[in-house]
């Protein structure tokens, strides 16, 4: 039985290479994501190593407790995540242990405070459930330092400011920049001099970016915006470039070149997209129950229009096919077309300066991220489906009935993404 489910060498190599590629791509994404998760988690804990590492808050609940709209993680997933979290925590702890002496050397004034801090206060408040954006209690934020910190931010652009150093720098800042006297009076009303660890949740709003960085960042934004704006306005340059391209084409050994392989590839991609859009629209029209003659007529017109469009697409495809044969164009030299949505990739009307993507709640952000992944996954699935079709269908066509196991496996791979299997009963002839 085992021998009948073996795949030929060529087919094996191709499939394994494709799947490995897909797996590697996923793993790479995961690595990037883990890196970013690590950074975020660290930021949400107390920053300064103000106490023994044992007092670290466990970030478990914040990562696992989020009810996500797109996926409800299975217990197994949670367990995996938990493990991952533990490993990450350990890594952070090790890193902190290494970096602590260095930091003490840099800021000796901090040392006594660091030692004196009781461990209990370093534990940051348990993170809130996401999605409750407005529920931050203002009382937890000591209001007394806001003004001072702003003064300091101006006075010490080089100090990266605040964090738990705010108190130490306050001492120096009092001499150097003389904060307004009112602050001193407010201070006693808050917890008197109790050493506190800095957490983003409590004092995040006190942070200010260093001035040098602010300048560079705003210059950066301005320059990118200029790149976008001058691009649309440099018609003289565009004309010169076009002229140069024409001269070059005329002086080349193939002055009458038709379409390039890249152009054909792009257009085939567009036609593929056209097909799915047409199909989608057709489905919507057929599903709607027309009420009254106007709707009925409209639906008919649309279907006829779609039919004509599909015809034109087919015709264009035929033309492309001829061009490919005539000019011996080599499409997709790596074997298969790139996945569906690679068409974009900085086309001529691309903009380069970052634009805000505005979201209003954690839930919305999660939905967006989940959908993005879903689309990427479907894209990959579609690609793999095509590869599997090319490799496996010819195989089962030529096999006889003695390879039912292979048949069954192929059916499941091609028709159900490998998730469900058909049932096969041998109908032994009754004696």
């Amino acid at each position: 039985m085992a021998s009948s489910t073996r795949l030929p060498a060529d087919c094996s190599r191709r499939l394994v290479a494709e799947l490995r590629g897909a797996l590697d791509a996923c793993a790479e994404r995961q690595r990037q994501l883990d890196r970013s998760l690590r950074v975020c988690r660290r930021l949400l804990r107390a920053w300064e190593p103000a106490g023994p590492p044992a007092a670290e808050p466990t970030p478990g609940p914040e990562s696992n407790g989020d009810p996500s709209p797109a996926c409800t993680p299975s217990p197994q997933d949670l367990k995996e995540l938990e493990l991952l979290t533990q490993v990450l925590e350990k890594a952070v702890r090790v890193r902190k242990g290494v970096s602590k002496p260095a930091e003490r050397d840099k800021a000796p004034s901090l040392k006594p405070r660091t030692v004196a801090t009781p461990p209990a206060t370093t534990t940051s408040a348990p993170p809130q459930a996401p999605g409750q954006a407005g529920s931050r209690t203002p009382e937890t934020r000591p209001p007394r330092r806001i003004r001072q910190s702003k003064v300091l931010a101006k006075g010490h652009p080089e100090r990266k400011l605040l964090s738990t150093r705010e108190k130490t720098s306050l001492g120096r800042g009092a001499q150097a920049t003389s904060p307004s006297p009112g602050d001193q009076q407010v201070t006693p009303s808050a917890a008197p001099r109790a050493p506190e660890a800095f957490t983003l949740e409590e004092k995040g709003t006190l942070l200010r970016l260093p001035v040098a960085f602010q300048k560079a960042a705003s210059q950066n934004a301005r320059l990118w915006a200029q790149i976008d704006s001058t691009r649309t306005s440099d018609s003289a340059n565009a004309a010169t470039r076009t002229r140069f391209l024409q001269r070059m084409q005329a002086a080349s050994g193939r002055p009458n070149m038709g379409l390039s392989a890249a152009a054909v590839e792009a257009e085939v991609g567009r036609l593929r997209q056209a097909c799915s859009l047409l199909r989608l629209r057709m489905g919507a029209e057929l599903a709607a129950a027309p009420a009254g003659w106007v709707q009925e007529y409209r639906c008919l017109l649309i279907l006829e229009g779609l039919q004509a469009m599909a015809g034109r697409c087919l015709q264009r495809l035929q033309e492309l096919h001829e061009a490919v044969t005539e000019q011996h164009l080599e499409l997709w030299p790596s074997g298969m077309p790139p996945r569906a949505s690679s068409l974009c990739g900085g086309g001529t009307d691309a903009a380069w300066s970052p634009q805000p993507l505005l979201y209003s709640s954690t839930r919305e952000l999660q939905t967006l991220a989940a959908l993005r992944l879903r689309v990427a996954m479907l894209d990959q699935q579609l690609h793999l489906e095509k590869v599997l079709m090319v490799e496996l269908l010819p195989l089962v066509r030529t096999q006889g009935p003695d390879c039912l196991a292979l048949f069954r496996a192929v059916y499941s791979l091609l028709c159900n993404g490998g998730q469900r299997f058909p049932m096969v009963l041998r109908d032994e002839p009754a004696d």
Partner: protein
Amino acid sequence: MGRRRRWVGQVAGTRAGALPEAIAALSRTLSAGPSPETFRRAKFDFPEAAPPLWRLLFYVLSPLSEDDIAASLTPEARVRLVKSAMRAQGYPRLAFSRLPEDGSQGSRELLLALSWLLARGPLLERLLARTRVRLGDEMPVCECEDLPCGRASPGPPTLCKDTEGCVDVRHVQWLMGKLRFRWRNLICSHQAQCALLSKIHEYTLGCHSDQSLNHLSAAETELLRDPEGGQQLLQMLEFENMRLEAALEWRRLEQVFWQWMDTVLGACPPDFPHAGSQSTFLPSIPDPGAGELDLVARELQALQVELREAVEVRRAAWEAQVRGLRPERSAEMRALKEAVGRELATLQQAWEREGGPVRPHRPHRLVRSEAGALPGQGLWAAEAIGALRNKEACLEAVLCWLQGQCQQELARLAGALPGVIWIPPHGR
């Protein structure tokens, strides 16, 4: 060749020194690109200018984050990749395709090839964007950014060498299962990341010096936590600013460059196709792309059949009904026809426009903002979600169709098997 002494600046009607400035700006924009001197030497086809230009072309034509691949390739392989990438884009010069593969010669042809790429597209912008310092928490809306994780490398896919020979189909199934599992993990991690980012944004509200951004990103908060890393980030940012300034200067001065390139082109021997050159351009390999063309054709044909059937039924029903309609309806019908025409034209634009539906490609920085607030321009997540849902539906439809095709084919094959009862799995 007394002419050879001439350096730049002598292009008619331009200020002396403008050309060196333009080339210097270009060179600075390309960051690790060739020095201005290399460009001058390339005009005279000096061989020492060839290796840096091959390197630059390879860098320009290879997709994102392929440094490791670049390192693993021999110079010959790189030359071949550059040639095939140029051919695929439709580069017309035959002399270029005939350059020796050791990469030792042809600096003038290489300069022409680079100029061709420069003249055609937003090349510099793309290169700048490729190494852009990401200050914000970004969420690409355009899926093309997922591509680097995909498989669009210009190299042959044989880079991953699997010499294990035949595998069992169960191994393929196992790999598929593993892939599904990885996606599930990825989705969960993404959800966790969104929750964390959203907290960082919320806790730092009002901290950003840029009013429209309002809060800090993870990277910006991190630079406050880790001043040394912040210093590095600042340096990278300043370096990028320098390159951006150079790119803007290049745009101001590029006219001179193109005039100079005209003289370079004039200095070239004619680009004749000579006997035997055909073989370099017309490889007689079987065309793997034809499969994809056929697949799209089949998809379109199937769609057309379905549409024809649907139209026939509805047209018959309509004609039966229309006999009862009064003639004054005709104006209404004409208006309806026009409206439908407009609607379908919009649909067609969705795929005909380069760059996909409506929105051009650009990077996006996440900004938390209460619904209803109006912080200048930006893309609302709800809009992006809508676009993605459309995309999702499209992809699902195609996948479904392909699976259906396979199902039909396999059911047909199974039906032909004697003595076997075939029960497909139920539900999806």
